[in-house]
């Protein structure tokens, strides 16, 4: 399609929120990313000692924060600099003490491929830890994705019906655990060869997943590269007092569906280009970059469980194997998470910035799933761990509060009023924390008051669960439930 020259530069929209005097961006910082950044800052993890190669269009060195960085070669005079400038500043927004090597590779409105290859090659031999590539070249999915590989090795289930299809596919995804294994082998391009060499050389390469649905983008699709996207958290009430948060495509622009890490999209921030430096900055604050790979696996597995858990209808024939896929996905996700917080003793459980960002979905959504299945022990293990490593996440506290309330109701039904009162105290405490973290959550506040009042007289407390357990899993005292270890 022909377009006239010019157009509005979306990078300038982001740049307009940068305060050069305060060296920070304005705007809402209430997402899980910024919670994790807050935890990292509390531990003094600001990116010090790390270096990042920022390979992008060009950089506006009139901005003092960028002038203080290492510019490897000058930006060409005719190049638009807003894109590279925003990318570099966003990395510093997350990791203010990281060192940047700035590689301008733009010419006019485009990327100079020769310069791009040269920049990647020089970065490989430099002392940078991470290479940020908010750059991509699109490939039609049909040209790179081999559907036979998606389900390769996964035999069809006996008597499979239409309802089974997404779960059977989910099982294949769970077993493969990387969409990159679905790609047709091919000879790498010059740029790809340079990126692969960087990965082989031990550099962490973080790339934009690309801005076009139904396309894949390179270098994001290369093995060993971390692809980053924006997602939109859509909150809906699906029962009177239960909130469902779904990750949906970002607002306002089209984006590839293939990524490893999805961040909540800030307002008026269009493009996976700008999600990428946020993850790069966060990675720069991590003590061990080697955990990024396991975190990617955990995120992928948890997302698989999450997408499928809403599709379970336990009343229909063969639901057990569908349920099993979700259960295994969440178990694998929790186990893939590198820090194994669920195994730690209470005294060793401390806030963990990276698990707060990358492991919350596995632990919290997995915990909620097991709660609905009346598997109270693994649910408590996962949710309890999440409240420790992600103390700013209201969902961790709220769901753990509900779990304690469920256990209190079971104790009350077993005529253990003392035990019920103790559990209601714990439930009220967690709900109070959730209400503090989410002041807009009336339900958290009401539940906290309900549980606190019930503690005084559990015998007359009329518990109203916020969820319907799957019918096949009758709630019963934890000691008698058919729980198994994570």
């Amino acid at each position, binding site marked *: 399609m022909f377009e006239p020259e010019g157009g*509005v530069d979306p990078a300038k929209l982001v740049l307009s929120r940068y305060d050069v005097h305060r060296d920070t961006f304005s705007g809402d910082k209430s997402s899980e990313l910024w919670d994790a950044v807050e935890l990292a800052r509390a531990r003094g993890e600001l990116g010090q000692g790390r270096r990042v190669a920022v390979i992008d269009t060009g950089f506006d060195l009139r901005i003092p924060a960028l002038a203080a960085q290492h510019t490897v070669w000058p930006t060409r005079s005719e190049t638009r600099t807003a894109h590279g400038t925003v990318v570099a500043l966003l990395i510093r927004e997350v990791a203010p003490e990281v060192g940047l090597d700035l590689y301008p590779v733009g010419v006019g409105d485009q*990327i100079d491929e020769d310069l791009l290859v040269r920049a990647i090659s020089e970065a490989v031999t430099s002392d940078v830890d991470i290479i940020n590539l908010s750059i*991509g070249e699109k490939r039609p999915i049909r040209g790179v994705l081999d559907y036979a590989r998606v389900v390769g090795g996964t035999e069809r289930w006996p008597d499979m019906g239409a309802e089974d299809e997404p779960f059977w596919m989910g099982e294949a995804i769970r077993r493969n655990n990387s969409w990159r294994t679905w790609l047709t082998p091919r000879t790498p391009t010059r740029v790809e060869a340079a990126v692969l060499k960087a990965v082989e050389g031990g550099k962490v390469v973080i790339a*934009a997943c690309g801005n076009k649905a139904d396309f894949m983008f390179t270098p994001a699709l290369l093995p060993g590269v971390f692809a980053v996207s924006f997602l939109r958290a859509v909150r809906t009430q699906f029962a009177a007092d239960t909130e469902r948060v779904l990750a949906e495509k970002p607002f*306002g*622009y089209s984006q590839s569906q293939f990524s490893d890490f999805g961040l909540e999209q800030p307002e*008026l921030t*269009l493009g996976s*280009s700008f999600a990428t430096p946020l993850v790069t900055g966060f990675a720069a604050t991590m003590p061990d970059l080697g955990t990024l790979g396991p975190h990617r696996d955990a995120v992928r597995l948890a997302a698989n469980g999450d997408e499928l858990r809403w599709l379970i209808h336990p009343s229909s024939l063969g639901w057990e194997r569908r349920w099993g896929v979700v259960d295994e996905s969440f178990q694998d996700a929790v186990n893939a998470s590198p820090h194994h917080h669920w195994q730690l003793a209470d005294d060793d459980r401390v806030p963990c910035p990276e698990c707060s960002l990358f492991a919350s979905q596995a632990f919290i959504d997995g915990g909620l799933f097991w709660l609905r299945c009346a598997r109270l022990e693994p649910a408590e293990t996962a949710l309890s761990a999440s409240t420790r490593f992600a103390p700013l996440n209201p969902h961790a506290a709220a769901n753990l509060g509900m779990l304690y309330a469920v256990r209190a109701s079971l104790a009350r039904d077993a005529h253990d009023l003392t035990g019920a009162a103790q559990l209601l105290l714990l439930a009220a405490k967690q709900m109070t924390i959730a209400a503090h973290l989410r002041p807009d959550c009336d339900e958290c506040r009401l539940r906290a008051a309900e549980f606190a009042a019930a503690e005084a007289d559990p015998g007359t407390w009329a518990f109203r669960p916020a969820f319907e357990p799957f019918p096949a899993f009758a709630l019963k005292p934890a000691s008698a439930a058919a729980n198994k270890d994570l």
Partner: protein
Amino acid sequence: MSDVQVRIRVDNEAELAEALGIAERAPEVTAEVVEGETTEGPDAQIAPIFAILIGASVIAAAKFVNDVVHSWRDKGVVVDLRPDAPDTVYKDPDLRAGWVVVVLADGKVTVEVKPAREDAWERLLAELLDGAFESVKSVADAAKKALGDDAVKSDDDGETQA
């Protein structure tokens, strides 16, 4: 009434921000930026934006367009309903604020949207986006009825407001 797609041209970052902000507050509207075609080879993962494509019911689309027009206080606006028009809604620097030019295949109608007639204009706009009118004359007649005779000028009258 049916669902429609409306392409709204944006000329600067402020217009883009305003239009996206309005879309964010309208959950019944889907909005996606229209980027320039990317070239062969690697690109920075956001291209220049030329327009916003919204999808919505005609009622929601009319409200959205009207809200966007409102946010463009400094100039008048063109609503181009010709099937081959590249953009449906865009600013016209030669048109006074508060005036809207509706372009059809056989000519154009210029209307002045006064604050007191906002609701009537929005209803008329919904009908326009729904393709309810086939000629300048029919639009002019409907506009005169909705907005008053003195607020409407059309090719059909032999004069054009510009």
